[in-house]
């Protein structure tokens, strides 16, 4: 048969290898970076800023081991997602049964409720600063506005646009980096403090250190990165790029944490440390206090940037946390889920999600400050209980040959991972016990 003339085939198959690789890289990044940045939520920012304000640069050394631990735990979940194509909640259900899943998810939901409240509280904290410029922006305006924005963007938005919006959120975190530079900190000293571990054995220091660890590695992140990897359809072939994404994300999140600590250390801590006798030290117990405290010390721009970063973090995390919680619960227990459904098609999912946002925001608007702190405090306690449990389950799953085939942890990885579990788990356990027993105002 006479061969017809061929249309020149467009692009794809003929691209050189490097192009393909870059393309694959860009199509794969996202989960790691978004997850890691969502890690810097209001609770996180609060913890880091208090660490800096109360202890100066003496906690910076923690960030390096914590980053390593974060990378290890995130990587395991991303790998599980790429190999099995299933989310963490699904794997837990299939391998450990309904009861274990129910317990894990119950703790998850309760702690998420507290977290959501904390995010909205962050908006409330930041509002006085904005109110200085636009007086009507008090918390009763900003919190409901944020709640509505979060709900509609997520439920009506197109994922591609939403992912881009999330990336934009991530960029705004750089405001903290700017803040950190604006305060002109002593870089030489900072470098030393970061590299040399030193330990101040006071209870306050230990508790804050545990807070720093606990807020960086949160159980929620393990679930989220795994389901993100599954949703993007990342398979084990593309996985190496995903790994880079995870590492980049973890590094970025801790770099931002670094700058927050630095910004507060160079201003508030330094101010307090160099007080003349009889001078009143600046006391900071919330992120809002920090933002306010920055103004006289470092200028109104540092303060504004900080507050803006806080608002950004709050809205960003409030968009992700409750939605994914509703999603895992529905998936694990067989309720229809997903924002592409109409309300009538997935009533449990939508009601759950709406309830989380409404209750979270409501707590901030209605409850007294004391009650809010109690709620947020207990959600962190729950986090502390949940984290070691989830880590252990993860390790059992990731080392299971039946599930992971040849992609189980190698020995080195297992050593690091189990050490992380023991240390992190042990510390969070101790801190949880202490917090409950002592009832002290931890970070």
């Amino acid at each position, binding site marked *: 048969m006479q061969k017809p003339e061929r*249309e020149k085939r467009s692009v794809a198959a003929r691209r050189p290898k490097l192009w393909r690789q870059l393309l694959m890289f860009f199509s794969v990044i996202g989960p790691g970076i978004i997850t890691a940045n969502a890690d810097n939520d209001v609770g996180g920012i609060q913890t880091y800023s208090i660490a800096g304000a109360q202890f100066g640069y003496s906690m910076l050394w923690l960030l390096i081991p914590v980053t390593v631990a974060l990378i290890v735990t995130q990587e395991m979940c991303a790998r599980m997602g790429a190999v099995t194509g299933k989310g963490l909640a699904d794997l837990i259900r299939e391998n450990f049964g309904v009861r274990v899943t129910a317990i894990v998810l119950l703790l998850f939901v309760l702690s998420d409720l507290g977290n959501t409240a904390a995010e909205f509280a962050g908006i409330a904290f930041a509002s006085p600063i904005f109110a200085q410029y636009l007086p009507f922006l008090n918390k009763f305006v900003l919190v409901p506005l944020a709640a509505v924005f979060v709900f509609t963007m997520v439920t009506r*938005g*197109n994922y591609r646009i939403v992912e881009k919006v999330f990336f934009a959120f991530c960029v705004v975190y750089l405001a903290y980096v700017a803040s950190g530079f604006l305060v002109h900190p002593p870089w030489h000293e900072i470098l030393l403090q970061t590299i040399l571990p030193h330990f101040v054995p006071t209870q306050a220091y230990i508790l804050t250190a545990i807070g720093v660890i606990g807020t960086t590695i949160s159980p929620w992140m393990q679930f989220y990165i795994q389901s993100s990897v599954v949703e993007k359809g990342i398979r084990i072939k593309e996985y190496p790029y995903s790994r880079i994404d995870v590492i980049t994300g973890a590094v970025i999140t801790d770099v931002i944490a670094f700058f927050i600590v630095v910004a507060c250390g160079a201003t508030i801590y330094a101010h307090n440390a160099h007080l003349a006798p009889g001078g009143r030290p600046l006391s900071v117990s919330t992120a809002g206090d920090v933002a306010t405290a920055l103004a006289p010390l470092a200028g109104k721009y540092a303060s504004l940037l900080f507050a803006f970063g806080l608002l950004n973090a709050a809205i960003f995390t409030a968009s992700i946390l409750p939605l994914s919680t509703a999603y895992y619960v529905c998936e694990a227990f*067989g309720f229809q889920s*997903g924002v592409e459904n109409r309300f009538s098609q997935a009533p449990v999912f939508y009601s759950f999600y709406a309830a989380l946002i409404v209750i979270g925001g409501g707590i901030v608007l209605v409850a007294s400050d004391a009650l809010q702190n109690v709620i947020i405090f207990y959600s962190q306690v729950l986090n502390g209980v949940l984290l070691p449990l989830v880590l252990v389950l993860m390790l059992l799953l990731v080392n299971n040959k039946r599930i992971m085939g040849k992609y189980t942890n190698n020995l080195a990885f297992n050593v690091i991972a189990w050490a992380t579990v023991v240390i992190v788990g042990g510390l969070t356990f101790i801190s949880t016990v202490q917090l409950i027993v002592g009832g002290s105002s931890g970070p």
Partner: protein
Amino acid sequence: MTATRTNEPVPFHDGFVSELVGRSVFVERDGVRGLVGRIADFVVERPQDTFPHIDAIIVKTKHGELAAPIGDLTSLDPAGLVLKKAPTVVRPPDDEALYLVEDLFDKQIVDVDGRKVERINDIQVARTGGALRVVAADIGVAGLLRRLGAAKVAPALIERIPRALIAWDNVAPLHDLSPTQIRLSVTEHRLSRLHPSELADIIGELSAQDAARVVGSLDDETAADAFEHLEPDVQRSIIDDLGTERAADIIEEMDSDDAADLLGDLPEDRQNELLAEMDAQTADDLRELVAYADDTAGGLMTTDYVWIFPHRTVEGTIAKIRQIAPETEFIYYLYVLDQAEKLLGVLSLRTLLLAEPSATIHTIMDQNIVSVRPGTSAEDVAGTIARYDLLACPVTDEHGMMLGIVTVDDAIDAIIPERLTKKLPRFTKRAQRRRAEAAT
């Protein structure tokens, strides 16, 4: 199942596995009952039966888990299970039989009747036909609550919740474990009752590993049919998981335009690997089709059509069509070609059926041919089809040589704008189903 007046426990008639697991197991000899353990699991040797019977009970004893053949069962009631003699069998670790708790609880299955993927919360068993049989899978909230122990606390509440049960003959299990022959045939047989697009919906909802396993368990034709309805990224992911030979077998069975689309999206070396495994004729056809860009007539066309020589009789042609129709995608127009494959004319099946059996084709064919070039854009092809009210449009080169046809369904698919409805996580696969449901 409350006790009767005489305090005789009511024997088990039907109920749920979650209620049975954990019940005490006794051995009764000479009127003396001794506790030996608790019910741990149930074994089914022939899961391919419609309502398979339970063949053995796994009892958790202080010596470990031992199996008791069902024949040893004397009685079963709320107090417990009584055996004739103590369980002694140790089942092998790679046992091929189906274990209800270990293999089915919390695992995903396909509801063949509802055409969805579900997760088993509980399993209903009943004494019927002289045996204890697996009757249904409970996928609802009631099953969930029962598993969480709510039955002991609030049995009335559970009774009030509407049951969500799937009859066992509509259940196609999917397992994590490497599938045994028995399970494969169960899955394959039940899944093949589904229409290919429904099968594709289900495959699209599974995790990548499970999807590949399910496709792997189907026969080539069913797999190919389902494949044609899958999204390209799902297709690629499954092709990656199947061996080259199996993938090639399936692609061979697919309609050539869909096969060419799939191949076109793969990297060149993979394309060649797969083409090398196919039979020469198919491989050649596909190689040609792959060369065309997706949104042109060449990219949309299929080489699966009916062609005849002009000197043929109507009678002979009808006989030929009867022969090849089962295998041919499009039979409603016949294309008349000469020896050099030049397109001479077209006639519809209707014209053929209404003509005199002894007439020759060239007297009844329509020589006013509407055709397009391979480079014609998809929109223009669709426009031509619409303008001339065609079911398919032939594609010819500039010498009038027949290259293929573009069917109206493919033309429509190509011009409907792709809806930007990719929403947040996990929705793209479900979105397919939503769209399909919305369309019906």
